[in-house]
């Protein structure tokens, strides 16, 4: 990464692994549970958060010296909400199809605690460029987990990936289903998302024991 100093590169790489917003900080769990029943929704959500967090972090960072500390949370909330609503309106006017896919996520993006968390913890105390990198890093870290969870839930729950029947047709009994394989409907329900996230956390901590807290 010739473009970035070592300190800046850490901002991008850290949230991907050792400081992942979902598996280490346990932020953004609500949306990770709600919308990962299929891969496509996970990807749409990951891209939306990437956009909002990258841009929002820059806006908050630019405003960091003029925001009154007493109402900073409200100001942050307004910035996210405004960004998301403007994006939604522009999409509705010029890319209607895409906006229909996205409309469900608007409310979820505004209330995503990763966004508020990064504004509060990073953008309020750092310059715009570093805040931008931090936003991108955290959004990608969030997206990676979301996509991993969406992949397993859609594959095992519906036997499809992005809507394609990769395991054969469950009603016509072709492919794997001819051998007696059945979809696990439980994978489609939210509790299973929590279990999948739990398994990812388990794997991550057993590979990197320094992450385990001492009691």
């Amino acid at each position: 990464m010739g473009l970035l100093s070592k300190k800046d590169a850490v901002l991008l790489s850290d949230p991907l692994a050792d400081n992942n917003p979902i598996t280490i900080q346990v932020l953004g769990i609500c949306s990770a549970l709600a919308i990962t029943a299929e891969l496509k929704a996970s990807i749409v959500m990951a891209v939306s958060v990437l956009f909002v967090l990258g841009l929002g972090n820059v806006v908050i960072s630019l405003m960091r010296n003029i925001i009154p500390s007493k109402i900073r949370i409200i100001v942050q909330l307004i910035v996210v909400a405004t960004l998301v609503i403007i994006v939604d309106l522009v999409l509705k006017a010029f890319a209607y199809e895409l906006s229909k896919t996205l409309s469900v996520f608007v409310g979820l993006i505004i209330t995503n605690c990763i966004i508020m968390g990064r504004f509060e913890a990073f953008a309020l105390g750092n310059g715009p460029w570093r805040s931008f990198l931090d936003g991108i890093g955290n959004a990608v870290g969030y997206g990676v987990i979301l996509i991993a969870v969406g992949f397993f839930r859609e594959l095992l729950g519906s036997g499809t990936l992005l809507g394609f029947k990769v395991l054969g047709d469950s009603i016509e009994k072709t492919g794997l289903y001819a051998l007696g394989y059945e979809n696990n409907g439980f994978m489609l329900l939210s509790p299973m998302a929590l279990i999948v996230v739990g398994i990812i956390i388990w794997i991550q901590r057993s590979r990197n024991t320094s992450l385990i807290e001492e009691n």
Partner: protein
Amino acid sequence: MSKRTDSNSYTMIFAVIMVLVVGSLLAFFASSLKPNIDENKRIEKQQNILYAMGINENDESSANFVSTDIAGTEFVKYIKKQLIIQGNKISEDDTAFLIDVKKEQTAAKAGNERRLPLFIGEKEGKVFYVAPIRGKGLWDAIWGYVAMDENMIVRGAYFDHKGETPGLGANITQRYFMDDFIGEHLMSASGDFKGITVAKGNNDPKNEEKTDYEVDAIAGATITGDGVSAMIKKDLALYVPYFKSLKK
């Protein structure tokens, strides 16, 4: 950080300015983009009605509308008549397209007689009666268009939603769900209105039984499915007198 930003007066002034800036920004975007958005919605409604009639660009598994450029001309080509039904009065009126089902439902609650739009289309010599329906899902509104023949046998259906859960309730817009409705009977042979129930465990996942008044539900989307059953029962029942009058 300076102490300046901690004072009450600064906080108040900041809040007021912020609200003004954000408010005018949003108002500007909303009003300048409104014509485009309205146009998109109008085209979408035409696409929905055409979709229910089976005029679409579906490939093997996904649902695709006719393209936005031709939706207008296709609509004029296939929709032969637009009716407004109000009580016993049936009038032919091209403003039926503009009727907002949501407003009519609210008006009906206030005691006014509801105006029911009905679109009569013709394709390959068959007549399609397309009626809009609207109800509640788990999170927000759900709605749809059901195309029927003169015996209230479903010829096609299109459903949509505002904010159902992606991967679960949102799947009412998927082919495998909407296509299940095709061929289902809404009325029994003796003329009783039965509706169509989105049923769990109806032992008919391939949907071969067309007179059971049931289609297979989506796993994990019970409340959205119940919403679909309810809006079909409630809104389509209002059209029963019209269909009965066709047979006289």
